[in-house]
């Protein structure tokens, strides 16, 4: 997706992917998926970090998993809002991390050039990802660490 950009905003399609998996399979699967996808991105993309995106998407996956099997998980609005919120959390998390590393960006430039275009593009391109994910994964079902033994 780095080839689709408006100003400095790039759509975050990892966020809706993690959200749809978490919201349909629960906290544990969401967290593990977020960790794996974040790590994969850091290994396959020239971002110069390891573990940062994995941590951010892990938190997103774990949080969104709490909505599994609730009424909200059967509509498209909730995952869409969560996807945009996840993209927002990711951008702010990366911004904090970059500030800690000494990379500066003005607040207004960050909001106007990066944050708003990223959120808008994510909102625009998330519905297909969410629909495909829902079709592939099936109805909401919490996956537990191990089955009940009787």
């Amino acid at each position, binding site marked *: *997706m*780095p*080839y689709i*950009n408006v100003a*400095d*905003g*790039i759509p*975050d399609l*990892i966020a809706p992917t993690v959200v749809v998996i978490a919201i349909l399979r629960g*906290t*544990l699967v969401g*967290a*593990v998926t977020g*960790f794996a996808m974040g790590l994969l*991105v*850091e*290994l*396959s*993309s*020239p*971002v*110069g*970090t*390891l*573990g*940062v995106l*994995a*941590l951010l998407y*892990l*938190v997103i996956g*774990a949080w969104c998993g709490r909505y599994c099997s609730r009424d909200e998980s059967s509509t498209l609005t909730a995952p869409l809002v969560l996807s945009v919120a996840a993209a927002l959390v990711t*951008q702010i998390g*990366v*911004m904090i991390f*970059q500030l800690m*590393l*000494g*990379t*500066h*960006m*003005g607040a207004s*430039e960050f909001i106007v*050039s*990066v944050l708003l275009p*990223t959120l808008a593009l994510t909102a625009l391109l998330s519905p297909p990802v969410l629909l495909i994910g829902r079709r592939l994964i099936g109805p909401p079902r919490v996956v*537990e*660490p*191990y089955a*009940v*033994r009787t």
Partner: protein
Amino acid sequence: MASSPATTGIARRRNNLRRGIIAALVILCLGLFTVYFRESDDGALHGAQSTAASVISPVQEVATRAVEPFRDAWGWASSLKDARDRSASLETEVDRLRGEVVFSDVQAQRLDELEKLLGVEKLVDASKDLGGYEAKTSSVVTRSISPWWRSARVGIGSSDGVMRNSPVLAGSEQGAALVGIVTNVSSRSADVSFVTDGRTEVGGRIPDAGPYFGLLSSITPGQLQLSGIPKEAAVKTGQAVVTGGFGVKGLQSPYPPGVPVGVVTSVGPQEVDVDRTVQVTPYVDPRTLSYLTVLVPPPPSPCRAAAAPAWGGSRSSPSPRWSCR
């Protein structure tokens, strides 16, 4: 219906196990990025990342080529409206440049003679002479997914002679211009940090402003700042900024001197400051490029490869590197 003690116990164990797994993953992430930033560029995690890049880059290259026609079609359609205007201006420019070529040839001949006479290092001319550097062009196989990291990966690596801190050029309306440096190399791919990336610093100078050297670094997205230029320098907007191309402490720079980087767009007030604040707009917007040219330096002599601190290059590379000025 009340839960039985057995069910409650299993639920509690499940809950604990779930929390334990998530906590373990969080600790793993914290450990990963702590070790990653503390280790040198030759460390285990950097090595694992390079290995993954080597494995993934051929797949990324195939995927990039598969979608390239669609990207090209979109680029063609979006640039169609400007094509007629550009054609007219280019025709005028060609007429002007034809006249300048004759004069330039005479100047080049004189410059060549003077360089030989004084033993000065040659300037880079991508179309004629690369001053000992070999140009390797490759397609961009992937880019950073976040604007915080202005970087890309090209499909050539150490097996092609590419090494860390190799300069990377791209075509612009002003000719070949510097767009970044190689910050990480694997056998079949190389990561390029653009000059607009916050981690990249390049030594530069403004030829029309006098014999002063400064350090180019990114301050805001897409903009550079040239620091260290003294007040007495005659800096004006519109002047070209080129690479400095000089080393420190007896080390030769991996950058050839005189490679265009950008143009001065703003000169800040400096009533009380020692240095001028010079804002530079790069000639090339690297986000739009599909191909990049890496200048592979000649093999280093033993004294050049010696470890020493340098002023430029990637801030994130704590390992010894060449001077980047």
